[in-house]
C-alpha cells in the first residue's frame, strides 16, 4: 500500500549506530535533577521510609503549603492527602478547600517514595458541569414525556409539581389562572411526601406572594434573589415546611395567555436558585405551561362538543295514552366527529290541543356543523308546531326556514309523524317523509310493509313535493322509523355486504308480538352484529306501537 518506511525503523537504526560508536554520556547531576523536579508542573513530595518529607517542589508547595521537608508528609491538614492505605500507582481525588487534587503514590527503590499532586479543579468543574447538564437534559426529557401523557389540566399540573419537587425544589406549587369566580386553584407537592395538596385562593390573595400576580399576568419571571421569602403568606407553604429560604416564581406560558405560575421553594439553609437553575426552571415552565394550556384547550373543546351533542341527545319517551314508543340512537362519534342523526318527540303543552308528534331525521355532514343544524331543525320544529301541526305543511315550512339558513349545506332528510288515537285501540299515524327512507309497518301476522309516503329532502330546493300518508295501526302493530345508517351498514359474514332494506324487513317480521322496546332492542342488536364491532355511521331506530290489547 505504501512505500515509505516507518520513522521508528530509521530511529532505531540511528540509535544502534550511535551506541556502537560512542560511550554513553554522563547522567545528570543532583542539581540538574532537582531543577527538573522543581520545574515540574505536577507537585512532587519525596519521602523516606518513615514518611518524612525529603523534598517538596514548588508546585506541591503551592497546592499544600503546610508540607515542609523534615516533617512527616501525612501530618496536619495534609493527612487527608496521603493515606497509608493508598495503593501504589493508583490515583485518587481529594477535595482541599476550593481545590480538587489528584494524588498518586510511586515507590522508588526500598528507601523512598514520592507523592505526585495534580490540580484538577478546573477539569473536574468541567466534568461536573457536563454531568449536571446531562442530568438537566434527562430531567427535561422526562418532563416532556410525562407532561405530554395527559390532556387534563389538573393531571398536567399535578405532573408538573411532582416533577418539580423531584429535581428543582423542596416544595412546588402550580397556581392556575383565576377563573370566572375570581378564584385561583392550586396544586402543591412537597419533596418526600407522596400526597398532593390542592386548594384555591382568591385572585386578590395571589398579590401577597411577591411576583405571583405578575407571573399570572404573564410578566417575565423576577430573579429569585429579589424575592423575599419572609413575605410569603401562610397558604403558600405547607404546614410544617418551616421557613422558606429561597423562593422562585415563574410564569407558565400558554397559548398567548399565561397558563398559570410555578412557585418553587427551597428550605432555609438549602442551596439558592442559581442562574443556571432559573434557566432550567424557565425551560421546564415553558413545557409545563404548553401542556397545561393544551389540556385546557382540549377540555374547552370537549365541553363545547358535549354541549353540541346534547342537541342530538334523544328525549325521554314517556308513556302515552294508547301507544308505546321506543327509540335507540347509536352515534358513530367516529374520530371525534359528531353525527347528525336525531329523533325527538313533541307533546302538546298542558291544556293545548293537538296530537303528539314524532320526528326522526338525518342532517347532511358531520361534526359541529351537523350538530348545530340538527339542533336548529329540532328547535325550528318546536316553534313551527305552535302554528301548524299537519306534517306535510310542517315539512314545507321547515324547507323554507332551512333555505333561509346561513348554513352552507342545510340539507335534512326526516320523517314526521303525528299520532292520533283511533277507535278500538287503533293508532293513526299521519306521516310525511322528506327525502328519508320510508318507515316500515309490522302487522300482527308478521307481514312487513313499506309506507308509500315520499317527498323531497329539505333545505335544497325551492319547491318541495310531498305525498303524505296515514298509517292505521291495530293494537300490537308497529311502525318503525329508521335512518340510513341501519340499512347502509356494511358488514355481515363477508364484511363487505350492505345490510339493506330487505334484511331489515325480514328482521322486523321476526318481532311480531313483541313490545316496541323489545323490538327496537332486537333490531339494534342485529345491526350491531352485522357491523361486527365496526362503527360507520349514526344508527337510529324509533318505533311507534298501538298498545296491545290485554
Amino acid at each position, binding site marked *: 500500500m505504501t512505500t515509505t518506511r516507518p520513522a521508528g525503523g530509521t530511529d532505531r537504526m540511528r540509535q544502534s549506530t550511535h551506541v556502537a560508536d560512542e560511550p554513553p554520556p554522563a547522567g545528570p547531576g543532583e542539581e540538574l535533577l532537582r531543577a527538573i523536579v522543581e520545574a515540574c508542573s505536577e507537585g512532587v513530595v519525596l519521602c523516606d521510609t518513615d514518611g518524612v518529607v525529603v523534598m517538596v517542589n514548588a508546585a506541591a508547595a503551592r497546592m499544600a503549603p503546610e508540607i515542609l521537608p523534615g516533617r512527616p508528609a501525612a501530618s496536619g491538614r495534609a493527612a487527608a492527602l496521603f493515606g497509608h492505605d493508598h495503593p501504589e500507582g493508583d490515583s485518587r481525588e481529594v477535595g482541599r478547600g476550593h481545590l480538587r487534587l489528584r494524588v498518586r503514590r510511586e515507590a522508588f527503590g526500598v528507601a523512598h517514595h514520592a507523592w505526585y499532586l495534580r490540580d484538577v479543579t478546573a477539569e473536574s468543574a468541567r466534568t461536573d458541569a457536563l454531568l449536571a447538564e446531562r442530568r438537566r437534559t434527562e430531567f427535561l426529557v422526562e418532563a416532556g414525556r410525562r407532561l405530554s401523557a395527559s390532556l387534563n389540566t389538573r393531571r398536567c399540573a399535578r405532573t408538573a409539581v411532582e416533577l418539580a419537587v423531584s429535581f428543582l425544589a423542596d416544595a412546588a406549587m402550580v397556581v392556575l389562572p383565576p377563573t370566572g369566580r375570581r378564584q385561583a386553584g392550586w396544586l402543591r407537592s412537597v419533596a418526600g411526601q407522596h400526597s398532593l395538596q390542592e386548594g384555591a385562593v382568591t385572585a386578590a390573595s395571589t398579590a401577597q406572594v411577591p411576583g405571583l400576580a405578575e407571573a399570572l399576568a404573564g410578566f417575565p419571571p423576577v430573579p429569585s434573589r429579589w424575592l423575599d421569602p419572609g413575605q410569603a403568606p401562610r397558604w403558600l407553604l405547607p404546614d410544617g415546611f418551616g421557613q422558606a429560604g429561597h423562593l422562585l416564581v415563574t410564569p407558565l406560558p400558554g397559548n398567548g395567555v399565561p397558563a398559570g405560575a410555578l412557585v418553587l421553594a427551597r428550605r432555609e439553609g438549602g442551596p439558592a436558585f442559581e442562574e443556571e437553575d432559573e434557566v432550567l426552571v424557565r425551560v421546564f415552565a415553558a413545557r409545563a405551561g404548553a401542556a397545561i394550556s393544551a389540556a385546557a384547550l382540549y377540555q374547552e373543546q370537549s365541553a363545547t362538543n358535549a354541549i353540541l351533542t346534547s342537541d342530538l341527545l334523544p328525549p325521554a319517551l314517556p308513556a302515552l295514552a294508547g301507544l308505546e314508543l321506543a327509540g335507540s340512537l347509536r352515534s358513530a362519534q367516529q374520530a371525534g366527529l359528531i353525527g347528525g342523526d336525531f329523533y325527538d318527540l313533541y307533546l302538546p303543552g298542558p291544556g293545548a290541543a293537538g296530537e303528539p308528534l314524532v320526528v326522526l331525521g*338525518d*342532517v*347532511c*355532514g*358531520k361534526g359541529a356543523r351537523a350538530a348545530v343544524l340538527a339542533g336548529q331543525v329540532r328547535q325550528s320544529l318546536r316553534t313551527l308546531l305552535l302554528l301548524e301541526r299537519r306534517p306535510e305543511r310542517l315539512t314545507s315550512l321547515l324547507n323554507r326556514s332551512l333555505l333561509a339558513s346561513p348554513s352552507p*349545506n342545510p*340539507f335534512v*332528510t326526516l320523517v314526521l309523524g303525528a299520532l292520533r288515537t283511533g277507535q278500538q285501540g287503533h293508532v293513526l299515524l299521519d306521516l310525511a317523509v*322528506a*327525502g*328519508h*327512507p*320510508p318507515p316500515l309497518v309490522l302487522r300482527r301476522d308478521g307481514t312487513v310493509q313499506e309506507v308509500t309516503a*315520499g*317527498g*323531497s*329532502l329539505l333545505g*335544497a*330546493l325551492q319547491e*318541495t*313535493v310531498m305525498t303524505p300518508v296515514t298509517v292505521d295501526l291495530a293494537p300490537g302493530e308497529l311502525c318503525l322509523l329508521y335512518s*340510513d345508517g341501519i340499512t*347502509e351498514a*356494511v358488514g355481515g359474514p363477508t*364484511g*363487505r355486504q350492505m345490510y339493506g332494506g330487505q334484511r331489515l324487513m325480514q328482521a322486523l317480521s321476526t318481532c311480531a308480538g313483541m313490545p316496541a322496546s323489545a323490538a327496537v332492542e332486537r333490531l339494534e342488536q342485529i345491526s350491531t352484529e352485522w357491523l361486527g364491532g*365496526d362503527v*360507520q*355511521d349514526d344508527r337510529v331506530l324509533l318505533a311507534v306501537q298501538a298498545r296491545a290489547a290485554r
Partner: protein
Amino acid sequence: MLEKTPLRTEVQSTAEGTTRLVLTGDLDYDTAAELFTLVQELFSPDLRLLELDLSGLDFVDSSGVAALINVYNTARTRESAMRIIALTPYLRHLFKVTALDQVFELPPV
C-alpha cells in the same frame, strides 16, 4: 373499517358547450368537497350543459347527495344545465327516496 376508494374524476368535452364529467369511486363525506371544487372550475360562460356519468360510483352518502344538489344549483345560477346520463340502480333508488328524481334530469329506466 371497510377500505375506502377515492373519488376519481374524468373531464371530457363531447360537443360545443357540453362537458361530460365521469365520476368513479366513493362520493361521500370525505370526497364531496373535491367534486364541488372541480365543478366550480368547470363552469365557464361557454358551458351550456354539464353531463354527469355516475355509473361508476360505488358509494354515495348524504354529503355526496348534497354535492350533487350543489352542482345542480350552481348550474341553474350560471344559466346552464346539469343532466345525469348514467347512474347505478342504487343511486336511482337514492334519488327516488329523496324525491330528487323529480328534480334531476335522469336517463329513462
